[in-house]
């Protein structure tokens, strides 16, 4: 990927991705897929466990602490097929948006 060398394209693409509503649509799709697969319930369960484990110093933990603790598991537990499908959608969007780009 030559993204690093041309920072302008990446930012421009991201801006268009958001403003065209494609990100919103994909977020919706992803959310419903994760919900159906039970991923959300598992993550929620994990977060609750984290709070229970740290119930002694609840004053000290922050949302960031919880995010740091749960994120690795959350990332790795996304079902592979959902990942692949969303990846495919994003790729399709990039090809649609940049017909002249030689990716």
């Amino acid at each position, binding site marked *: 990927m030559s993204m690093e060398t041309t920072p302008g394209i990446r930012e421009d693409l991201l801006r268009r991705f958001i403003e065209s509503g494609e990100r*919103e649509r994909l977020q919706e799709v992803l959310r419903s897929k994760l*919900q159906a697969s039970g991923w959300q319930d598992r993550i929620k369960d994990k*977060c609750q466990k984290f*709070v229970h484990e740290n119930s002694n110093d609840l*004053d000290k933990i*922050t949302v960031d602490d919880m995010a740091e603790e749960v994120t690795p598991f959350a990332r790795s537990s996304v079902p592979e097929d959902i990942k692949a499908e969303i990846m495919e959608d994003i790729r399709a969007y990039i090809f649609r948006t940049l017909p002249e780009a030689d990716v």
Partner: protein
Amino acid sequence: MDSSPEKSASVASSRRGGGGGGGGGSAGGGCVHLAQRHKAAMERLKVVIAYSQISRHRQALLVGRRGGGGEAGEGDRSRKRLVEEMSAPFCGACGTGGDRLHACLQCDAYACWRGRRVRAGGETHVARHMRESGHVVFADFARAAVFCGACGDYVHDAAAWGLAAAAGARWHAALCDGAEPEARRPRIVAAGSELPAAVARYAREHAARPRCARVRGVVNLGATCYLGAVVQALAHNPVLRGWLLADGHHPGACERKRSADGSDPKTLPPCMACEVDAAVQAVLAGGPAAFAPVRLLRALWASRSAVAGAGQQDAHECLVAVLQALHAAVADPADPADPAGPCACIVHTAFAGVLQSAVTCARCGNTTRALDPMLDVALDIPAGGGAATLHECLAHFTRAEALAAGAYRCARCAAGGTRDAIGAVKQLSLRELPPVLTFQLKRFTTASPPAKVDRVVRLPLHIDMTPFTAAARKKSVRANPACAYSLFAIVDHVGQLDTGHYTAFARHRARWFRFDDGAAAPADVRDVLALPDAAAAARGAASKGGAAPKGRAYMAFYVKAVLDYHDAAAAAAPAPPPPTAEWVEGAGVVRVERRGRKKGSTNKAKSPDVRAPAAAAAPAAAAASDSSDSDGEALWARISKEKPADDLVPMLPPPPPPPPPPANDDDDPLASTASSDSE
């Protein structure tokens, strides 16, 4: 859907506020840094929230149009321009718009969370903005949660919370329309008693906050565990509970009415509404011992002689019997409103949806639609390995099903002279979703020999029903916020076909409890969702060894994530105005109960002010039926005439609300559970 981080944030911060001492007492907020700049920050937050709603849902808002057709109204055009010309916000440091974007509430800057790994020495762009400008208060752009850089965490602020909730309510209607133009989403039309304004005000000002803080078991009166499970599911149903606690059915007035012809109230047949009211009140009031539903059982037996007597019954049949008797007791046959309108009784308000069955001719493509009223959805459990999910069951339920040749005769083909039998495709879908959606998992097959289906079915906490609606059958639609549901109760069945035991899980004040006859105990959400069973089933399917876990869930109860209340005054208006923010705000049209704010809002829902629009409910029903097609009207006419209730109760002005249960400062639902398992 996005509420969990906010919730956990508010929990953490409120604890911190209490522990920090200092400014803990000020206006419910724990953060002194926010309190110092509160006014200016809230002014900025107002703008940020509106901006956030529009830019996050720009496409949904663009699609949504009321009235349909070619001519776009003035409101549509301005909304379209607004959406098209407004650019999305970007982080001032890196120019991306993605990574947990935060808006500074002290200047116009936006900063993101890129460069996190604070522990590894990194500095987020939010932190950099703080260092460079000295500003400390930010708002998460997507979730409108307030972040205090000095505290290092999200902080709870009542005013900010209120602004975000109000914005969500204001945009709800527009977003629903965006998902499905002219969405005919059923709202809760105020039903039942009409409190005079003076009484409502008196109740609001004088009533102590109802203490529904406890849970209570229901005694098994000898193989009546099915009744206990059903009572728990009814008592924790937010819509029904709100109606009962808002004095929807008044037992005193009911008795006066029924004994008006001089008969002795003791000899009258029992009134199901009175008994359900008493049972729900008793269960919610808590108490030293479990509740014995003797009178409710008698009313059930009186209404259904088939289930009378000892012996095990089916919980689903019991639920249907209770609901039918309840409908018969409270429905108003002489309702002057509109005979063609939907039945306004609480049962149909809460549970009734419409099922659509579409049959498409394989030859000419002509589709015939039949609409059926439903109180619950009975789902087959598809065969397969491992655990099934509710989504799979629903997909199976709404699948396109080929009808055998000869089973269907197409009217259009017949008119065209073709008379030979041809194939057809039948498909079920949900035409109208009720506020409370009940699923029955068909575990008891009627095949011979009858057997129990033991497959584990995983029930999600939240489910989006959009893909299973009739609208989604026509074309793929966006996720409709009006179709989002949350789980609130499960009825489980363990054992065999002919002998077994019913238990229930129910959510009470955002916590889960397990009810096993007289015992009520806190439950882990993992057990509620049967996560261990599902995991074991997945393993079992892989290894083909060991005892496979048996599915327990038999009925699941879901409630809409956002409950729409119908305002009669607005509905009676000649034409629905476009869903702009001003309109909704000005008329106070949509009354929304957010499940996320359960503690406050459930109490609010019970207070009489929610019921105030009841006075004009009649025009509301009339207006609602205007938009429904003729099929729907005929259908509702049928429903409302089905059960003529002769023991109608015109509501007398009820006396001031009953005194609250004995005050007990302990708000903890666990308080009564320890002692309640005596049978």
